[in-house]
């Protein structure tokens, strides 16, 4: 009952956040239940039904090899979510460790780390991801890794800033008076207390990560055919854009809706974790 009341209050007060959450929920559910909900096999070629417009059999039409676009979009959700969460997860994890150590130790270690991060941030992130991805070899896994590496500095900076302020907090001073070693202070006091902004950054970052992963696939440096990946689908469909508009449009819309969902939700999470929110 109390939960229900909270939910109703929340929906009324933060409709956009709830919309974002609902979108994410739907995308996640659809991707988990892909074999159950997709009307066709996403990889089965059906050369008699090439480039069919949306209709009763193929709800969103077919591509040039006669594969059902709706089914491919449903399966594509898996790859996009994996890309988004994987990129943010890897970048966040490294960011937390490097940032908290750098912040607590300070001095020369901190200086060196931060200058390295500055250098990485000086490159446009897409260009750096492109170069890394090409160097690692163009496939889906490597594209995730490449984007994650490019995103690490964002989290390092964030966590280091937090660590600098948390290490001055009195519970850290108190821990020092009982002789707590540095590893203890980092793992017990600093990391748990800088997680909130990292979570916010990560939620907001998933949308962008999905977008970059799709972009790499679009260019041909990410997921390779015949994988059902939204960016790759848009890329393949773009030559048919004038006559078979549905081919590139529907995967594009899928990207758009998913990214919007994560962004709306991320904004909400940021507001919720803001101490001023609890008035």
């Amino acid at each position: 009952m109390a939960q229900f009341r909270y939910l109703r209050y929340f929906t009324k007060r933060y409709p956009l956040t709830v919309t974002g959450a609902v979108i994410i929920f739907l995308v996640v559910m659809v991707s988990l239940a892909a074999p159950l909900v997709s009307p066709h096999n996403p990889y089965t070629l059906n050369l008699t039904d090439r480039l069919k417009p949306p209709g009763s059999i193929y709800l969103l039409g077919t591509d040039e090899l006669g594969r059902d676009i709706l089914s491919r979009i449903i399966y594509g959700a898996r790859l996009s979510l994996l890309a988004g969460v994987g990129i943010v997860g890897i970048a966040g994890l490294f960011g937390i460790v490097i940032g908290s150590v750098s912040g607590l130790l300070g001095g020369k270690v901190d200086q060196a780390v931060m200058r390295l991060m500055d250098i990485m941030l000086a490159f446009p992130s897409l260009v750096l991801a492109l170069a890394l991805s090409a160097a690692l070899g163009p496939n889906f896994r490597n594209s995730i890794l490449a984007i994650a590496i490019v995103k690490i500095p964002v989290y390092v900076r964030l966590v280091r800033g937090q660590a600098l302020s948390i290490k001055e907090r009195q519970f850290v001073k108190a821990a020092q008076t009982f002789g707590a070693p540095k590893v203890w202070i980092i793992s017990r006091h600093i990391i748990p207390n800088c997680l909130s902004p990292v979570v916010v950054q990560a939620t907001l970052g998933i949308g962008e990560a999905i977008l970059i992963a799709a972009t790499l696939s679009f260019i041909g440096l990410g997921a390779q055919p015949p994988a059902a990946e939204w960016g790759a689908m848009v890329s393949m469909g773009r030559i048919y854009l004038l006559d078979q508009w549905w081919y590139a449009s529907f995967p594009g819309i899928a990207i758009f809706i998913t990214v919007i969902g994560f962004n709306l939700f991320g904004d909400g999470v940021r507001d919720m974790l803001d101490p001023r929110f609890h008035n």
Partner: protein
Amino acid sequence: MFKPLLSLQRVGKEFPARGTGKGLSYKAVNEVSLDICPGETVGLVGESGCGKSTLGYLVLNLLDLTSGEILFEGQNFANLNKDQQRALKSQIQIVFQDPQSSLNPRFKIEQIVEEPLRLNGWRDKQKRKERVRQLLDKVGLGEEYLARFPHELSGGQRQRVAIARAISLNPKLIVLDEPTSALDVSVQAQILNLLKKLQRDLNLAFLFISHNLAVVRHLSNKVAVMYFGRIIELADTNELFNNPLHPYTKVLLQSIPNINPEKPLLVEVEGEIPTLHKSPLGCSFHSRCSIANDLCREAGPELQFIKEGHWVSCNAMSRGRKE
């Protein structure tokens, strides 16, 4: 005479001064000497920026000294090896002003109180749990608090948790840094009573840092008044409050609003507390002192013995004695 538990000998701490040019520094704590005996409470009063909190951090070995030395039971922290330093650290604990900030918000109360135990060789989980219960009981909190988070507690309860944590390693000295300033009056009374009781039961010595003179008077055996990094007067509590000698102490005591409406507030001092960048030459109080003369503007006085249990650092006192 008791052998002092803690002895500060001409302790000094300088910080680099930012924004004033290169190589400059200011003395946050300047030539402070002070003894604390086992089981006694020494009050340390002064206005913001006078260096009282810095002195507390020095006693806790959270900051390095610039000059002088601190002896705890006759031992100098700097001369000890790592294990000995650890053992000594556990003998001196702190309770901070704001229990909101001194308790890790992500820890449950049990984890907060057992943290020092875990770090100091209490490996047995069962024994640790037993000890945490016992500690909470000592500060008047029941078992039901073990699984709660700090934000679920009131300010007074949080301060009790901080106190339980501070006594967990059986320290001999606790630095109390404004322990009741963030609390309401009714809760302040609870905490002060608790501190008094614990002191009796555990033979604790307190270094009680506060700007609230009424509270200091209630709890302390002797009181040191700090101004601008120096102790300017040190005396037994009753002596200090009844017979203040330093002009600054007098001003400070007169500035406390009295609860009796018929004892009006006397404002005898004008002007501001000097800032660290505009540190005056000579006696640091001369710019606000009503009896300052040329000597005060040039030479800073030393803390000098007046009578048993009373020391003052004021040129006027030595002048008075010569005349």
